[in-house]
């Protein structure tokens, strides 16, 4: 447990210095604030940008950040040093996961300032769950990629699918049908209803299956490759 805390502390210290990861955390919350406050298009659904950017944030930031952190440690051979110091691979992964989840929740908290107070608990609960799925997927990439370059090229398509599918789905019914199978699109639907009572069994099931797949994939990757 002490090692998990150490990893979180290490990451927190690195946050402001690690520009490539920092920009992932900051971009969508800042864009949301700008769009929700500065842009006023008539007939635009309420909180359109806040909801859209939330799912894009979810599909992008945790995934990229986790994969970037793990693959950088592999490339620079610092992960080995940690393992040699008897930090267990799961302690490391949990530490990185907790860190990224926490920072993303702070980002979600910033976005949440645009929502009416009564919707905020629902919003944060849904985001919290979605971030976990994205983190598991990011960890899979981090485990498979031997270095940062491979990690970036593996993350890109996955991230594009998860974060852009919900946006493209608005313009095209066919895409919408496919996009439905991804948790980010389902979470977008959840955010449109914005009530715990309004969660359709279908949405719940799809998000659960996504989560299950991500977690199975993560354990499979971890068992196969470990953190070498």
């Amino acid at each position, binding site marked *: 447990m002490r090692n998990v805390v150490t990893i979180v502390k290490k990451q927190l210290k690195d946050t402001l210095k690690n520009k490539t990861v920092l920009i992932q955390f900051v971009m969508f919350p800042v864009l949301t604030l700008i769009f929700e406050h500065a842009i006023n298009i008539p007939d635009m659904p309420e909180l359109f940008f806040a909801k859209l950017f939330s799912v894009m944030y979810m599909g992008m930031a945790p995934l990229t950040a986790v994969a970037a952190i793990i693959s950088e440690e592999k490339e620079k*051979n610092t992960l080995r040093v940690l393992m040699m110091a008897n930090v267990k691979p799961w302690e490391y992964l949990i530490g990185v996961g907790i860190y990224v989840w926490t920072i993303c929740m702070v980002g979600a908290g910033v976005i949440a300032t645009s929502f009416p107070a009564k919707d905020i608990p629902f919003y944060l609960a849904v985001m919290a769950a979605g971030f976990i799925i994205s983190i598991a997927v990011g960890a899979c990439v981090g485990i498979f990629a031997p270095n940062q370059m491979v990690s970036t090229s593996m993350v890109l398509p996955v991230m594009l699918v998860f974060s852009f599918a919900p946006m493209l789905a608005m313009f095209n019914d066919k895409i919408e049908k496919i996009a439905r199978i991804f948790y980010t699109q389902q979470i977008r639907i959840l955010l449109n209803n914005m009530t715990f009572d309004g969660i359709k069994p279908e949405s719940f099931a799809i998000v659960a299956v996504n989560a299950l797949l991500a977690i199975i994939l993560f354990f499979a990757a971890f068992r196969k490759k470990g953190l070498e």
Partner: protein
Amino acid sequence: MIEAKNICKRFADREVLSGIDLDIRPGMIFGLLGPSGAGKTTLIKIITGQLVFESGEVKVFGKNVADLTGEDKRQIGIMMDDHGVYDRMSCADNLKIFADIFGVPYSNIAKTLKEVGLEDAAKKPAMKLSKGMRARLRLARVLMVSPKLLFLDEPTSGLDPMTMRYIHKLIMEQKEKGCTIFLTTHNMEEASVLCDEVALLNEGKIIERGAPEDVCRRYNHQRKILIHLTTGEDIELAHDTYSAGKISSLMEQGTVETIHSSEPSLETVFIELTGRRLESEEEVKYA
């Protein structure tokens, strides 16, 4: 401290280590010498449990590596040749991570940085360090936990002579504190200066071992007297009575410009045993 019997290791179908025996006693500096690719790093990895091996037996602190407890491992400092540091973090923050992991008091951080001469760079990000400073930071990381057993994989490779001497001093200080040290190097001079015992590793086999001076003494036939004459001619003489007469007659003629005696060194011993040098030509040039 470390006992190994008949260690064999192969990668794919290539045998990298073939039957290595070691017996490293507490408090000594043991040097594993060998050219690049000889299997030095592989052997350290096996002894420290980072790599599985086909056959043989390794004991550290009298236990099989797999049976070492967390407390045992805490007393072992390992610096592999490719280990990195956190570039964006300061020297002090780099050490802090490991102080947290090992439960070492934070007061050790400043103390260790001072020990390795990095006290002025404590707040500097690691990426702004020179190569020599970086090497000292990597060393600080293992020294901070006051290890009883230290593995140093090529601790001075590629460093300037001044940093090299500094690191030698640090290694000697550890020995004085009672630490047992296992180091690898392809610098034979380093090994003669530092090590109580050396083993020459070549193509996966230990071809010679013992205290550096004993090893050299065994090759006393290499001792020669080299004379450079005023005529520009060089002559090589053996260490014997015949040579004494020859030298004195040359002296009387006044034709001796310089006179040297050449002793066997670990380097010449290695060359005799293998027909190859320890360091590659480029490395000699840069040294």
